[in-house]
């Protein structure tokens, strides 16, 4: 098993003929993901790489191919609209890679997605990968290995760094999920912890958080109550100044709230082993598994 995506994932790529969409669609196909459809308005009827049918709308793609998962690579200006469209077409899992969606747009997108019974991962995220099964998004497949560690993170390249450490030390992953660096996101740490706790294949969890908000603190309290599997955690931004957005729209210390110190303390209180540096992930996991 794995969480959210596996061999049954049938993917539609929104923005498949664009620069990023086409590059990553090819990468996902090479990895073995079932890319069953693409969507670019005005390019319906074409075939991507002589194989994948392209449709004008997500609804047509779903009707023709039974796609059950959508990934979004369209520009920020139309990304909120692309999420609405995917959820409206009955897609159950929508992954939005695009960075730069205004937060006020997300206040309208999120209730809509929930009402349709869909799950959104992201926006502003690298997507997810269940090694050797399916990859949706942009996480490099070659750094991952199948195994029993579930990884959930607000970051992209920092996740690669930590996953790379795991793989080179023989610790494979069940699923790696990038939940995104924006202040308003569809799937949070608690959702992922819940999924990893229920997943028979996952034996331990790595949580990679950062400054800003209280998602990590709430997840720590939840983990203490509900998660029986060992968790190792990291928080980026110990040296970040308050009041400044550290690249990610959501990575900001507001006043005195959302600091790395407060999140690390919450982790420790909940029995989560805290890494002082990314290289600590392997010894801490080995200790706990």
């Amino acid at each position, binding site marked *: 098993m794995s969480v959210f995506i596996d061999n049954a994932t049938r993917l539609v790529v929104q923005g498949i003929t664009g620069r990023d969409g086409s590059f990553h669609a090819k990468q996902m196909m090479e990895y073995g993901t079932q890319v069953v459809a693409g969507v670019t308005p005005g390019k319906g009827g074409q075939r991507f790489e002589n194989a994948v049918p392209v449709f004008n709308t997500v609804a047509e793609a779903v009707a023709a191919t039974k796609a059950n998962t959508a990934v979004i690579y369209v520009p920020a200006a139309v990304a909120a609209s692309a999420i609405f469209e995917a959820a409206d077409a009955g897609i159950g899992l929508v992954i939005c890679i695009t960075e730069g969606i205004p937060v006020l747009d997300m*206040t309208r997108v999120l209730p809509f997605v929930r009402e349709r019974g869909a799950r959104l991962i992201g926006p502003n995220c690298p997507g997810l990968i269940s090694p050797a099964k399916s990859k949706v998004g942009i996480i490099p497949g070659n750094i991952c290995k199948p195994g029993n560690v579930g990884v959930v993170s607000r970051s*992209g*390249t920092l996740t690669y*760094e930590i996953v*790379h450490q795991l793989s080179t030390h023989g610790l494979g992953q069940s699923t790696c999920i990038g939940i995104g660096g924006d202040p*308003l996101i569809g799937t949070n740490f608690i959702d992922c912890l819940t999924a990893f706790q229920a997943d028979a294949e996952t034996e331990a969890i790595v949580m990679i958080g950062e400054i800003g908000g209280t998602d990590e603190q709430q997840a720590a309290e939840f983990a203490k109550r509900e998660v029986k599997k060992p968790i190792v955690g990291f928080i980026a931004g110990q040296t*970040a100044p308050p009041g400044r957005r550290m690249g990610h729209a959501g990575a900001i210390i507001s006043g005195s709230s959302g600091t790395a110190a407060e999140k690390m303390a919450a982790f420790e209180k909940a029995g989560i082993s805290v890494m002082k540096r990314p290289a600590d992930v392997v010894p801490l996991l080995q200790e706990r598994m």
Partner: protein
Amino acid sequence: MNLHEYQAREILRRYGIPVPPGEVASTPAEARAIAERFGGKVVVKAQVHAGGRGKAGGVKLAKTAAEAETHAKAILGMTIKGLTVQKVLIAPAAEIASESYVGIIVDRASQRPVLMVSPAGGIDIEEVAAKTPEKIHRRAVDPRYGLLSHQAMMLGFALYKDVKQARAAADIMQKLYAAVYGVGASLAEINPLVTTPDGAVQALDAKIAIDDNELERRPDIAALRDVSSEAPEEVAAREAGLTFIKLEGTVGCCVNGAGLAMATMDLVKYYGGDPANFLDIGGSSNPQKVVSALRIITSDPRVKVILFNIFGGITRGDDVANGIVQATREFTLKVPIIIRLTGTNEQLGVEILRKAGFSALTDMDEAVKQAVALLKGKAA
């Protein structure tokens, strides 16, 4: 992006919120002319993106136009929390009967806009929240319906017993809510919302922050950016498509990805150094971005060593390597450089660097250790 008080007041006015008069001046003579036009006592207020302007001496009461000119002369050019005052707001000194607070933020936990009001206005709202949380009333708004009249009235009554004033406050809240969605604000505050001796409710001071992600589709709001209020390196970085934040240390960091960039800064600190900056060259790589990044980093005289930490995903190692080599052709780096390069096109990148006389490491921990060791070797 933060707006100045005078810009925020203008937006509130546009949305029909009663704001007392006020005009902005860039010179003492302008300040005097405005004060003469208003007649009577005026307040001279520094326009900078910093709280605590009053405590810093940036807000002064003037009894005459001549005094307004003197105060403007003192305030213009003064530095508040590292920011130079370029403009002052001149406003008639208002007689105030009571002060309260009205604010709207997008709450991350409830994922909704939240109205916050408090009868304890005019002071730092964070302090009120910490010391007397019972004095803050909150209401999460369903964005599908907006702030409903009865919800606004409940908050209005939390501020004023008088029904007319409660109604006036509720009306201001609904207009402020419309302004938030209208201009793409991530925060909008009226602090203080005042009542005058004759009972009118007015927005005396306002603070609006715009979500940077809104600027592309709102050129009129983007035009309000005051470049002179930002660090020049940060302006240059933004124009080059980089995210850069200046810090106080000596290790110049150049990283791909925000999370890894923060983790790199933290690791510099862990090994006993101090980061000079946060710099994310972004996802899709382009040698020119690396050149711009190096130009910005080396313009800081405090930087004693440069540290690259690249984990290629979308970012390609050869692009980064080409950028470094190209930069050294355009200008001298003056300080040593430690490069960690792994991931997509790592071999190509390492080869390009080797031919140009640079070496590259594959391990992040090792790279940071070496950078800090170089620093200490230099200091000794």
